[in-house]
C-alpha cells in the first residue's frame, strides 16, 4: 500500500431531502389526527395500549429522523438515550414521588445533556465512525445500568416497577385511554415543534451541514455547535419517549434497552423514509406490529423477518414510506384528471 496520504472525497452520508418534502399537507394531517383521536373510542384496551406504544416509538423514530434526516449524522445508539429517559422517569416517580407528567421534561433535559455531551466526541467522527461509536454506546448501556454502584436507584438487574397513572380531574375514562390521549398530546406537541425546528434557522443549518459540511462552514455556520445541538435535541426527544415508555409499560429493566431496540428504531426510520417526519409513525407501526405477526409464525423469527424486510426496503423502495406516499399521491392526481 502506498505511503502517500490517501485522499478521499467524502461520500454523501444521507441523500438530501428537500424541506418541503418533509411534512404532510394540511388535509392529510387532519385526517390522520382524526383517526388517532377517534379510534381508541371503539377498540379494546390492549389495542389502545399498542397504539400508545406506537406513538411512543413514533416519537423515538422522529428523534432519530431529526438527527439523520436533518443533520445527516447516524446513530445506532438511540436505545441508550431511550434507556436514560425511561430510567429518569421511573426513578423520579418511584424514589422521589414526582408526578409522572413532570418527570418527562426532566427526562428530556437530562437526555439533552447526555446527547450534547456524547455529541462532543462524536463531532470529530463522521459516517461509519459515528455509527461505530453509537453502536458501542448501545451495547454498553445495559451493563452500565446493571452496575452495582447505581443499584440503589436503578434496582440493578431486576429493574423498577412503575405505577400507572389515573386520569386526572375525575375524568370518566380508563387508565389506558387516559395514557393514550396524554401520549397523543405530547406526540403532537413534539411533532409540531420538530417541524418548526427544521423550518427555522437552526433547521436550515442542520440541512446545510447534512448536504455539505465544508460549504456550510464556509457560509458561517458553526458546524460543531449545530452538530452537537442536533445530537442533543434528538437525544432529548428520545428521552421523553423513553419516559413515556416507562410509564406505559410500567416497568424498566436493563435488558429492555439492548442493541435490539436501537436496531428497531433505526429500522423504523429507514422504513418510514429518512427525513420524512410523518414516516416516523409508519416506521413505528412497522416495528410494533411486524414482530407480533412474525412471532405468531415461529418464535425468534422476528429478527429474520426484520432483516429480510429491511433488505427489501433498501432494494425496492430506498426512500421508504415517503416513496410509497409520493407514488400514491401521483396516482390519485392522475385519477382526478
Amino acid at each position, binding site marked *: 500500500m502506498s505511503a502517500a496520504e490517501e485522499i478521499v472525497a467524502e461520500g454523501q452520508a444521507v441523500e438530501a431531502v428537500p424541506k418541503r418534502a418533509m411534512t404532510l399537507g394540511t388535509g392529510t394531517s387532519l385526517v390522520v389526527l382524526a383517526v388517532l383521536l377517534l379510534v381508541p373510542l371503539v377498540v379494546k384496551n390492549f389495542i389502545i395500549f399498542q397504539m400508545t406504544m406506537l406513538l411512543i416509538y413514533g416519537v423515538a423514530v422522529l428523534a432519530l429522523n431529526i438527527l439523520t434526516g436533518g443533520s445527516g449524522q447516524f446513530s445506532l445508539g438511540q436505545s441508550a438515550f431511550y434507556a436514560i429517559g425511561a430510567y429518569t422517569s421511573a426513578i423520579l416517580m418511584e424514589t422521589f414521588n414526582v408526578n409522572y407528567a413532570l418527570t418527562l421534561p426532566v427526562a428530556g433535559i437530562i437526555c439533552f445533556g447526555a446527547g450534547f455531551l456524547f455529541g462532543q466526541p462524536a463531532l470529530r467522527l463522521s459516517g461509519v465512525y459515528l455509527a461505530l461509536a453509537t453502536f458501542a454506546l448501545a451495547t454498553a448501556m445495559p451493563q452500565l445500568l446493571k452496575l452495582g454502584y447505581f443499584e440503589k436507584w436503578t434496582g440493578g438487574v431486576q429493574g423498577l416497577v412503575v405505577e400507572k397513572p389515573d386520569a386526572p380531574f375525575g375524568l370518566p375514562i380508563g387508565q389506558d385511554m387516559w395514557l393514550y390521549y396524554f401520549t397523543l398530546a405530547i406526540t403532537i406537541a413534539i411533532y409540531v415543534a420538530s417541524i418548526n425546528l427544521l423550518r427555522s434557522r437552526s433547521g436550515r443549518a442542520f440541512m446545510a451541514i447534512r448536504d455539505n459540511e465544508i460549504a456550510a462552514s464556509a457560509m458561517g455556520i458553526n458546524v460543531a455547535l449545530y452538530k452537537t445541538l442536533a445530537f442533543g435535541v434528538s437525544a432529548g426527544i428520545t428521552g421523553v419517549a423513553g419516559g413515556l415508555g416507562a410509564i406505559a409499560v410500567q416497568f424498566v429493566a436493563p435488558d429492555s434497552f439492548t442493541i435490539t431496540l436501537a436496531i428497531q428504531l*433505526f429500522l423504523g426510520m429507514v422504513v418510514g423514509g429518512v427525513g420524512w417526519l410523518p414516516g416516523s409513525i409508519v416506521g413505528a407501526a412497522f416495528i410494533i406490529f411486524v414482530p407480533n405477526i412474525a412471532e405468531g409464525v415461529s418464535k425468534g*423469527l422476528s429478527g429474520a423477518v426484520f432483516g429480510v424486510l429491511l433488505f427489501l426496503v433498501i432494494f425496492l423502495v430506498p426512500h421508504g414510506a415517503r416513496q410509497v406516499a409520493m407514488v400514491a399521491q401521483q396516482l390519485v392526481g392522475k385519477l382526478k384528471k
Partner: protein
Amino acid sequence: MELFANQVLAGIATGAIYACMALAVVMIYQAIDHLNFAQGEMAMFSTFISWQLMQWGVPYWLAFVLTLGFSFVAGIAIERVLFKPLAKAPILTNVAGFIALYSIINSCAGLIWDFTIKQYPTPFGSAPFLGSQLISTHQAGMIGITLLMLLGLFFFFRYTRIGLAMRAAASVPESARLVGINTSWMIALGWGMAAAIGSVAGMMIAPVVFLEPNMMLGVLIYGFAAAVLGGLTSPFGAVIGGFLVGIFENLVGTYIPGVGNELKLPIALALIITVLVVKPAGLFGRPIVKRV
C-alpha cells in the same frame, strides 16, 4: 509481579481472538470502506456450522477446514448478492444493510440451534501449557493459530500475484482496473477471506465463552476497538491492536477496583471513543485527507 505477568499473558490470549476479529473487520473495511456490523454474527454462524459437523461425527480438524471453506464461499455469496448492488449507495443504506444482515443471521442461528448455551470442544485441551500455571494449552493454541494466520496473510499479500492485485484494488481502484484487475471480484475475495478469518476467531473463542447466538457481540465490540486502535487501514495494526486491547482489558479488570466483568463493554466503548477522538487514524493507520 506474578499476578501482573499472569494477567498480561491471559490478556495476550484473549487479545488473539480480538486480533482475528479486528483482522476480519479491517479486511472488509479495506475492500469497501465500510465497517461490517454483521462480522460477529457471521463468525458465530460459522462456529455453529462447525459444531453441527462435529455433532454429526466429523473430526475436529476436518470440521475446522470444512467450516473455513463454507465461510469463505458464504462471504463471497453475501457480497455478490446483497452488497455489490449497494456499492454506490449512501453510507446510511450500507449501514442499514449490515444491520439487516446482523438481524437475519442472529435470528436464523437462534431458529436452527435455539438460544441455549452449548459446550464447544477445544482441540488443544485445557491442561496448563508447558507445565506453567500462567496459560492453558488452549490459550497457547489460540495465540499460535492467530500468529500462523497472520503470517499466512502476510505472505499472501506480499508474495502472490493475487495478493498484490487485492492490495491494488483496495488502494487505487481506478488504476487497478486500468491494468486489468477485476476489482469487483477482489472485493468479493476480501469478503470471503474476512468471513473465513472471522470463523477462525469464532471457533477459537467458543470454548471460552460457550456457544450461543449472542456470543460474538462483546467480541465484535472489542474487535472494533482493536481495529480502531491499530488503524482501520492496517491489517498489521489490527493484530497489534487486538493484543493491546486484550492486555488492557485484563489489566484494567485486575487493578482498578469495581471494574470487573460487568464493565467489559463500557471499557470497550471508552476505548473506541478515546482512540477516535485522540488519534482517529489509529496507531498504524494512514490519516485520511478530505477533498473539498
